[in-house]
């Protein structure tokens, strides 16, 4: 878990990082999403790296069994003003660790919460994982997924730096669509 804070009232953005790699293209994509969002409104960002939660996370099957550290990570995600679900495509879907995290999230905790879907993959042919795997997961949670989801292929990156301006444009579009809604969700304007 990494937390950075902005001065004053800020949108609490929580990234759930489904990549096992460090650095990763998936976080390279998220970096651009966060930078773009920060230009639109004050934000406070936190990140949960599901692959680094350890045996206290991987060894449990029920929410009641989790350690205080894992409980804090789950609570953080459950209370986000904007959740960014970011994954590399693994075996045609989201990675197992990522799903395991959401298997522990309370069934109704994300109802009505804004969730932005982001994924990276080897090629464009993986892009529909966003719509066919990730969006139904948050459909179950009755979350408010941002209509435009963001995908970037390996060829869009120089290492882990996102270079393709078309993907930058798509990020801008995804966030602009919901910018007004996001502003109403920041703690200063909405009673939390």
């Amino acid at each position, binding site marked *: 878990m990494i937390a950075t804070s902005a001065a004053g009232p800020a949108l609490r953005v929580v990234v759930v990082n489904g990549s096992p790699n460090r650095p990763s293209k998936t976080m390279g994509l998220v970096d651009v999403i966060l930078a773009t969002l920060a230009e639109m409104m004050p934000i406070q960002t936190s990140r949960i790296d599901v692959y680094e939660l350890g045996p206290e996370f991987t060894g449990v099957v029920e929410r009641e069994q989790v350690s205080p550290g894992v409980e804090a990570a789950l609570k953080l995600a459950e209370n986000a003003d904007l959740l960014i679900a970011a994954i590399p495509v693994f075996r045609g879907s989201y990675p197992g660790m990522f799903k395991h995290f959401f298997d522990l999230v309370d069934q109704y905790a994300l109802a009505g919460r804004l969730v932005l879907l982001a994924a990276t993959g080897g090629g464009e042919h993986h892009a529909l994982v966003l719509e066919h795997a990730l969006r139904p997961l948050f459909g179950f949670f009755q979350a408010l997924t941002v209509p435009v989801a963001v995908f970037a292929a*390996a*060829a*869009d*990156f*120089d*290492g*882990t*730096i*996102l*270079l*393709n*301006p*078309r993907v930058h444009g798509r990020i801008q579009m995804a966030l602009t669509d919901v910018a007004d809604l996001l502003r109403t969700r920041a703690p200063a304007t909405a009673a939390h």
Partner: protein
Amino acid sequence: MTFEIGIMTFGEVTEDPVTGRTPSPRQRVRETIEQARLADQVGLDVFGVGEHHRTDFVGSAPAILLAAAAEATEHIRLTSSVTVLSSEDPVRVWEQFATIDLLSAGRAEIIAGRGSYTESFPLFGYDLRDYADLFREKLDLLLKIRERNPLTWSGRFRPPLHDADIAPRADGDTIPIWVGVGGSPASAVSTGRLGLPMALALLLGPVTYHEQTVELYRAAAAQAGHDPATLPISINTHGYVGRTSQEARETMYPYFAKGMMENNHQRGQGFPLSRPAFDAQVSPGSGLLAGSSQEVIDKLLTYHELYGVSRALIQMGFGGMPQKEHLAAIERLGTEVAPVVRRETATLAGRTA
């Protein structure tokens, strides 16, 4: 920009699928220099040697083959196609190409690339996890070496240089450095930002395959303050210039199919390229620069129109094309194709000027 036409080779040592014979490496290096000599004599503009570190190619040290070619030629430009810069020491690359530049009175060029194969990484002790960082850093160093001498520089992958005197210098003002781009949007953008000429590689697919690549390249160049109109783009593709349309296809097909079987893998192994699939790749809407002289002229003009390319490098020896046919195709490219393409593109330029 006058349109430039050239050939490139990796020095293929492939068993001939028609005769069953495999040329010896000694035969292949001699034949490679003979190709350069003929290309020079028939007035082609560029001779390129690519880099593969495998026994089925003799081109693991392009600089040495190019040095030999320098001695056998007078006018043709001599380029790597490409130098796998990520696994090279840029200081050594510069020294070698500056030497070729002196030997050839200013005809040396470098196409720096990441390489489509990665066999050189373990050979020279590099980690594939550093793939992107290696290329970025080494290209930076190569460009700095070209720009000034002595040089002070430091990076992650080699010891720092303190006031280092790197010699020889180029024969003339400079040595052209191109960047080889396979079509990934990120490569196009990073090359454009640097304002470097782009050598586009196209293996298979529609002739329009690189439209987005070129668009991204020009936009990135303009955004970084470079004038896209002054940046040359080259297309590098497989091909063959035959006596007739039919002869070109009949001659090229068995070798190209063999080359694809040995080099283009799916599920870890080669797969057969059927004749209809090959014919489709040679059709006017596809990328291969193959056919009769007139077909190749038309295709080159299509490339020029689509992307504004001012250079084309054609690889005609893929899959072990026999020397006799290879030389015949080089001659047709130089005497029948190149003059028409140069004239037509010059006329087009005059019309738009």
